[in-house]
């Protein structure tokens, strides 16, 4: 367990999308993550969403009666990572059954899901705080989506002075007003 945790912390510094805090004035597109391949070094799997992955795995094996064959259930997340001095801040939303996901209808269009959001602050290799709230998750782009939705995404902005993380979501080229939120880290 300790080794897993250490590996995860080490892996934090290898994340390709880590943004330094001094770039905080701009919005950062959240990156898409698929957890089907289990990892002991991915901090999103080991630190941020381990309980959600466990629940999804239990759902597939117990409710859907499908074997996982060493893989995880299809759990996906959006995430941004910021570096602020000794601190690393991970902002992430995960698509789980706790999300409210809009209309199911032949006449409906793409809507965001309102999902669990977690902001994990790590300092000197230790998890300082995990803040839980809700935030918008958007479908991952694929070629079958309408052209206008292939750039849908959620974006974050970290303000180290104010100690806040802001989130906004664009669907079909327009920001969704209900998805614009600012979260305090204090």
């Amino acid at each position, binding site marked *: 367990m300790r080794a897993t945790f250490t590996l995860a912390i080490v892996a934090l510094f290898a994340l390709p999308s880590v943004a330094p805090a001094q770039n905080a004035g701009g919005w950062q597109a959240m990156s898409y993550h698929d957890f089907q391949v289990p990892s002991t070094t991915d901090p999103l799997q080991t630190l941020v969403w381990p309980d959600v992955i466990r629940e999804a795995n239990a759902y597939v094996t117990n409710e859907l009666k499908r074997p996982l064959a060493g893989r995880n259930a299809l759990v996906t997340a959006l995430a941004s990572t910021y570096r602020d001095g000794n601190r690393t801040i991970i902002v992430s939303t995960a698509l*789980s059954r706790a999300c409210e*996901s809009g*209309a*199911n*209808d*032949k006449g409906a*269009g*793409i809507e965001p899901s309102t999902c669990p959001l977690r902001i994990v602050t790590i300092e000197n290799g230790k998890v300082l705080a995990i803040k839980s709230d809700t935030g918008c*998750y958007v479908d991952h782009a694929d070629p*079958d989506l309408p052209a206008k939705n292939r750039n849908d995404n959620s974006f974050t902005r970290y303000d180290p002075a104010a100690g806040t993380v802001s989130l906004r979501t664009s669907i079909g080229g327009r920001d969704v007003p209900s998805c614009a939120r600012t979260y305090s880290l204090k």
Partner: protein
Amino acid sequence: MRTQLVSLLLTIILCGSVLLSASGPATAAQYCERTNYSAQDITNAVRNSPLRDDLKGTSCSLGGLGRFESGGNKGNYNGSCCTGIFQLNNANVQKYAGTDRAGYGCMSLQDQVDAWARLTNDGYNSPAVRQLASMSTFDGQKVDASFIAACIQLGTGNCQKMLNSGTCSGFADINGTTICKMANNARAMADPNCQDGQAVCGPSGPGDFPTSTGIAANPPTASSASIVVNPTDV
């Protein structure tokens, strides 16, 4: 020279078509075989699903809902959000069927209905559904199981918007389908010969709709009640 010109022309056409297919609008698509399940077929799958028993009581109208959504074609993708017999959106396909849109469109009717049933069961506990189930009518429409299923179908967040507005028009999808209209369509498209378990399709009157807390737990206020029964009268 002529060969080079033909090659150039073919290249331009090929590149153009690739670019068009990459940036053009997605259209409705078909995953796996096209099916034409009847309202009764869908009703039978609902009865065999893990759907809560109180909602199964009006499974005839839920067969109608499946026909309304997909025409009985389980592989239908509407070109934006939704796929399958009940047109589950992309997020709910992943959450409740554990697969992606194409995988879901190729699942059996029963597996699709089972995923929809689990979504509906979860939605039943949402604040919006509890609020709706505590009413006998909403905007002049009877609140019955079809109405409650339509509330969950169009999204409990959207259903809450309708409830907050006080009118059926408080939420409509991009085609103008309201929750009230969907419930009416589901009732109308049920198999006319279908027999529900406890009642014929479309329960009538307050008290016929399912509620997990029981009618006695949701009494009207004394000032609005026409009959007041005191504890000593029982």
